[in-house]
């Protein structure tokens, strides 16, 4: 029998420290649904998703009961819709978004991702139509998530796409203005998008993936924060060890769930995403981990170093616990979804400039940040360009999910509810990026992309 203390430790992690499996995501290829007939395309997509993911939710519920660990989200990611619906016009794409929504409701999942396009080097007509359709698609659905990859280390940055995405964010914010521009919470702009990421809003089922696949995203910032607190004052070598050991344990649970889910659903197991994903719940915050390391507030000097160490230790601990690691794998810093980040932003300890620096050493990017509704499209594109450049140059994934909240300004706050949380509206630079963004074209790939 396992040691009594180990058993109590596990129970405590689940009961007190919010340990959970953040998501079991089924990737589904829609390539075999392609048709030049819109109705046939829609019917095939609906059938493929509802058939493949029919038992996803019930299986996850079953595993949740068997192992006594909450599985918070059940999701589906699909082949980027711009590829499946390459022949569609703008309205055709909006209809596809609604088919995805209908299928998601039928199988009972929380979100469906993949309403996106890969345009790092250029835009096909289909990709351009899909991008044009995003504001309406996100305004008429609730579960559909969209991600656009505008850059990669290999291809450089497609600045035309960056410019367009600033406008698309504005339009999406306007069309969902009745709900604090929530449409933008379902839209992410990426560089180096991973093709097996189980987390939303950026999940897609990449083109090199099998027909269907199970990817699992673990979580547990509360567990790491408590472990650090328990350890008390120690040096960084020791601290890194504490984080590694904790990450190992968390990831093993993810591995177990992924293995079992894959067996029960008769679907290959893809990857475990080793991410510390916070929620607005007390004790489930990445900011608190950094603060437990000795920072008075998340965002003060030292925060980037603390996050860099955390991110690295989580990977080192997790990688040994899992046979395949992928997705984003690192710490997430979504402002509105993290109680400690919200607090730090509200009191002025955390600025968007500091967040940008932090994204250079963690797994995602500028995530769930509310900005003034009157921010210009060019300024949004400027923020995207900065963040994407960090990813391209550093050979890593970065992403931008901003919410220019319609009708609101600095000093006000916005409430999204549920896992999306709430956020103060952050101050941006008052100076224009208009002429820079207007140039268009491509920023060439960096020299270190030539590795062959």
């Amino acid at each position, binding site marked *: 029998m396992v040691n*009594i203390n180990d058993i*109590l430790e596990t129970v405590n992690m689940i009961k007190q420290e919010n340990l959970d499996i953040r998501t079991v995501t089924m990737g589904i290829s829609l390539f075999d649904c392609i048709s030049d007939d819109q109705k046939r395309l829609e019917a095939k997509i609906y059938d493929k998703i509802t058939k493949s993911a029919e038992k996803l939710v019930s299986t996850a519920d079953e595993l949740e009961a068997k192992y*006594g660990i909450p599985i918070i989200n059940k999701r589906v990611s699909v082949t980027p819709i711009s590829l499946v619906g390459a022949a569609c016009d703008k309205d055709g794409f909006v209809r596809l978004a609604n088919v995805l929504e209908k299928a998601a409701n039928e199988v009972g999942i929380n979100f469906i991702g993949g309403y996106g396009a890969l345009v790092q080097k250029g835009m096909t007509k289909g990709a351009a139509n899909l991008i044009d359709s995003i504001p309406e698609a996100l305004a008429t659905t609730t579960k559909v998530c969209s991600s656009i990859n505008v850059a990669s280390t290999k291809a450089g940055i497609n600045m035309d796409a960056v410019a367009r995405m600033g406008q698309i964010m504005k339009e999406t914010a306007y069309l969902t203005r009745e709900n604090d521009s929530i449409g933008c919470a379902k839209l992410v702009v990426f560089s180096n998008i991973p093709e097996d990421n189980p987390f939303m809003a950026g999940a897609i089922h990449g083109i090199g993936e099998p027909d269907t696949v199970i990817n699992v995203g673990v979580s547990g910032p509360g567990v790491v924060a408590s472990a650090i607190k328990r350890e008390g004052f120690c040096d960084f070598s020791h601290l890194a060890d504490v984080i590694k050991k904790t990450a190992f*344990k968390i990831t093993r649970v993810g591995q*177990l769930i992924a293995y079992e889910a894959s067996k029960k659903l008769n679907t290959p197991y893809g990857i475990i995403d080793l991410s510390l994903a916070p929620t607005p719940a007390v004790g489930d915050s990445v900011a608190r981990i950094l603060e437990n390391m000795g920072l008075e507030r998340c965002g003060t000097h030292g925060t980037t170093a603390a996050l860099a160490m955390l991110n690295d230790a989580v990977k080192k601990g997790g990688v040994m616990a899992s046979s395949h690691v992928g997705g984003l794998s690192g710490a997430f810093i979504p402002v509105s979804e993290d109680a400690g980040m919200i607090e730090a932003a509200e009191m002025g300890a955390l600025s968007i400039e500091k967040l940008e620096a932090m994204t250079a050493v963690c797994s995602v990017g500028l995530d769930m940040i509310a900005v003034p509704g009157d921010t210009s499209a060019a300024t949004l594109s400027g923020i995207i360009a900065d963040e994407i450049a960090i990813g391209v140059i550093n050979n890593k994934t970065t992403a931008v999910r901003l919410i220019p909240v319609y009708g609101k300004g600095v000093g006000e706050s916005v409430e999204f509810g549920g896992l999306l949380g709430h956020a103060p509206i952050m101050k941006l630079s008052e100076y224009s990026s208009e002429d820079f963004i207007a140039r268009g074209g491509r920023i060439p790939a960096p020299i270190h992309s030539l590795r062959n």
Partner: protein
Amino acid sequence: MKAVVTVIGKDSVGIIADVSVECAKHNANIVDITQSVLKDYFAMIMLVEIEKMETEFAVFQKELASLGEKRGLDIRVMHEEIFNSMHRI
């Protein structure tokens, strides 16, 4: 196939008896049991054989949880594999 039953909460007379009766009712055989009381805090861990259980696992879980609620205890039933995964390499 075994499950781990954890019972945590304030100590009182008859906790082991009540939990054991519930296990017997479902034909879940107790193969190991360990408990400790620290001040008023009671923690018990039972390893039960669930292969020959006559009810579904989920029902067993719910009934033990509601017994816990009645007595002001946190009673959980989890498959042993989660502990092996986490704590053994």
